[in-house]
């Protein structure tokens, strides 16, 4: 009897250790499921995702291995149609497993709040005319892991215009328009997001950042790119027929290269940009047999200095 009890405790301990180490390993793996970390905010978010994956894996493995154990060892013997032990409840156990999720929720919410505050991505505040009661002032501060000079020389506010179905970027200081978003790395970027027609969403997976753009609302958006390279900007809010084509390149480069690009683009005459939605629309409307339904015609392709 005593040996049986010790054996049970040993089985439980081995199981717990196996589940814990497996969860920690899965949590570490989670970084490899994500795109490159190209913005300061992505470092914070990836740590949070890894934490949640670890915790989630622990819960999932815990519950499923208990269920699997029951499926294997608590099966009715063939022809045994009697009932199991009539255990209806256990107050201590029920209190404990109500308390555990409450504590977990508080922990996850606290950590998420901290990360969100450090991101300081802004967004609109004019929709609800209320001041932040939760001390979001620090949202304007730089992210914890951002390079020290990120706020030293913030970039001019770049205008981002979304329309069905094109992205247009305007740099007001030099009056340059582009279909490619060029950004200097290690600087706090400020965008003014506007939509010409429907809801759109500004989303760069490599930055882990997203913000809906609402017609008639100017929406400020801030972040800090940290890794030079070429990334994709996509429209994350469904915007109609050619939604999937509404993409643009985002080029993160050193501040010097960025200045050089600005200077070079300023010398170019505006030309009509390539636009996938417009060319697909022209193609399908010339087909002799219509294979789809009528659609909203795409807006005219933008005139840009730098077609990218």
């Amino acid at each position: 009897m005593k040996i049986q009890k010790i054996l049970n405790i040993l089985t439980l301990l081995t199981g717990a250790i196996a589940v814990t180490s497996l969860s920690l390993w899965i949590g570490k793996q989670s970084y490899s499921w994500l795109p490159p970390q190209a913005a300061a905010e992505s470092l914070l978010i990836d740590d949070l995702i890894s934490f949640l994956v670890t915790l989630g894996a622990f819960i999932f493995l815990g519950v499923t291995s208990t269920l699997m154990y029951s499926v294997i060892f608590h099966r009715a013997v063939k022809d045994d149609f009697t009932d199991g032990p009539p255990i209806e409840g256990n107050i201590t156990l029920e209190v404990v497993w109500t308390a555990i999720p409450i504590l977990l929720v508080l922990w996850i919410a606290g950590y998420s709040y901290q990360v969100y505050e450090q991101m300081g991505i802004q967004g609109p505040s004019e929709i609800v005319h209320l001041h932040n009661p939760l001390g979001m002032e620090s949202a304007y501060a730089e992210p914890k892991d951002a390079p020290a000079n990120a706020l030293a020389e913030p970039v001019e506010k770049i205008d981002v215009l979304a329309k069905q179905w094109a992205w247009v970027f305007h740099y007001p200081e030099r009056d340059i328009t582009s279909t490619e978003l060029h950004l200097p790395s290690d600087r706090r970027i400020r965008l003014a997001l506007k939509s010409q027609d429907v809801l759109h969403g500004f989303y760069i997976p490599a930055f882990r950042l997203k913000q809906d753009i609402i017609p008639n609302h100017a929406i400020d958006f801030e972040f800090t790119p940290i890794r030079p390279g070429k990334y994709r900007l996509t429209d994350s809010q469904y915007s109609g027929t050619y939604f999937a084509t509404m993409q643009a390149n985002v080029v993160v480069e050193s501040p010097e290269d960025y200045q050089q690009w600005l200077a070079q683009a300023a010398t170019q005459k505006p030309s009509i940009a390539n636009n996938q939605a417009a060319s697909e629309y022209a193609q399908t409307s010339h087909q002799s047999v219509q294979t789809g339904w009528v659609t909203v015609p795409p807006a005219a392709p933008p005139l840009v200095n730098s077609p990218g």
Partner: protein
Amino acid sequence: MTNVPIEGILLPDEKHNHESPSNWKEYFSFSTDHKVIGIQYLVTSFFFFLVGGIFAMVMRGELMTPESDLVDRTVYNGMFTMHGTVMLFLWTFPSLVGFANYLVPLMIGARDMAFPRLNAVAFWMVPVVGILMMGSFFVPGGPAQAGWWSYPPVSLQNPTGNLINGQVLWLLAVAISGVSSIMGAVNFVTTIVKMRAPGMGFFKMPLFVWAVFSAQIIQLFGLPALTAGAVMLLLDLTAGTAFFDPAKGGNPVMFQHYFWFYSHPAVYVIILPVFGIFSEIFPVYSRKPLFGYKVVAVSSMLIAVVSGIVWVHHMYVSGTPGWMRLIFMMTTMFVSVPTGIKVFAWVATIWGGKMRLNTPMLFALGALVMFVFAGITGIMLSSVPVDVHVNNTYFVVGHFHYVLYGTVTMGLFAAIYHWFPKMTGRMYSESWGKIHFWLAFIGTNLNFLPMHPLGLQGMLRRVASYAPEYQFWNIIASLGGFLLGMSTLPFIFNMVISWMQGEKAPANPWRAIGLEWLVSSPPPVENFEETPIIISEPYGYGKSERLTANLPE
């Protein structure tokens, strides 16, 4: 026989014969018998499940390759809009209402619902909704293409210029579906409050009844918001009002509030009855009482209450101020507490039992495992910073398909197999049931698990074309989707053949405890010859108590 008033409610004084429906015609004609209506709901909604499934197949076919090459973009957009709409409004809602209709009066010892004619009218609005939805494929401009959310301004763009277009029909259908569900909710709440058999206090009700009760209370406070939003959008679209049209000074974000105020709780309207189904099935096939019965019952009500303050988590990135994002993050995460209580209670019920892996138990176990997974990704989504990254990506699609297929649809199959002998008086084939389970379980995971890595990498939902680096996981998902489609064939085969020539079912084939198992299979019209008098709590496995004072057991 004439009905006796039960606790102040008068049943309609109609002549019924005492036999259960004996031919097909009765299931396709106007009837006020809650059991016939229940089966009408189930058969109708299953038809639309197949329709919605075909739309899904077209989408998965399109997504096999990165380019938009199988169907036109407008066709793809119509497909995902109608897939979402049909699966929610014509499959999950009506099928669960079908079960509730069939089971609630039986489980509480009532002869019918409180308002049998209202019940029938509510059902017959479902085919009307279906005809309007399907009719939209044949009007100029085709079906609605703005997604099942139908966010303005996209939903207000009407390229055909006709007044009769897919979006108008869609909005009419959604509004009618809302009215039908409100009628149902009034009926269920009244029935459960007023028509329980003598001796059945609230804490003697089966957990399925608790779950239906909580879910229908959500319908009562939530649906008016959705229906109002749909009507306002309809006016914007047809009468030139400017509630949501930004070009005329309207606010499109207001529509999102109207929409999600109901449409997030709607998920609990769907899943609470499935939780109820789990709570009915696990004790029977583990042969143990449900662990923590009272806590599980109260947790359903708690979910209903909290569900009223979670809707903004769909709008974290749609222009919601920071303080609001954080409040709704807390309330959303709090849903995991009552849900966690339920999961622990089911695991404890199974633990140490004498388990039999019949088809209903297999489906319930598979659904429970997939629900735990969905719950974990749900917590991740409720966290604002994570949601900022994965919102509107395939991570969300994966999460809610684990909820809606992995949990709800699999739970529905568990229920269909479990109560099939009761409803039809015939046994189903256990081996075909198991083939169905394994195909569906493997198909579900192959289909929806790859959506999580896709979403984390940034693949958006609702796209007809995508970057080539996403192709690998999309092929796996599509193959899983086709397997899932195939998995319904053995189910249909099993149901049709068994219903026609299955072995005759006894009153209680599973040796289950519950009022519905004390009447014959299928139960007679008006259910009980004599109103049962309840003397013990439900789930008395291993306790050898009598459930009623008067019915033969």
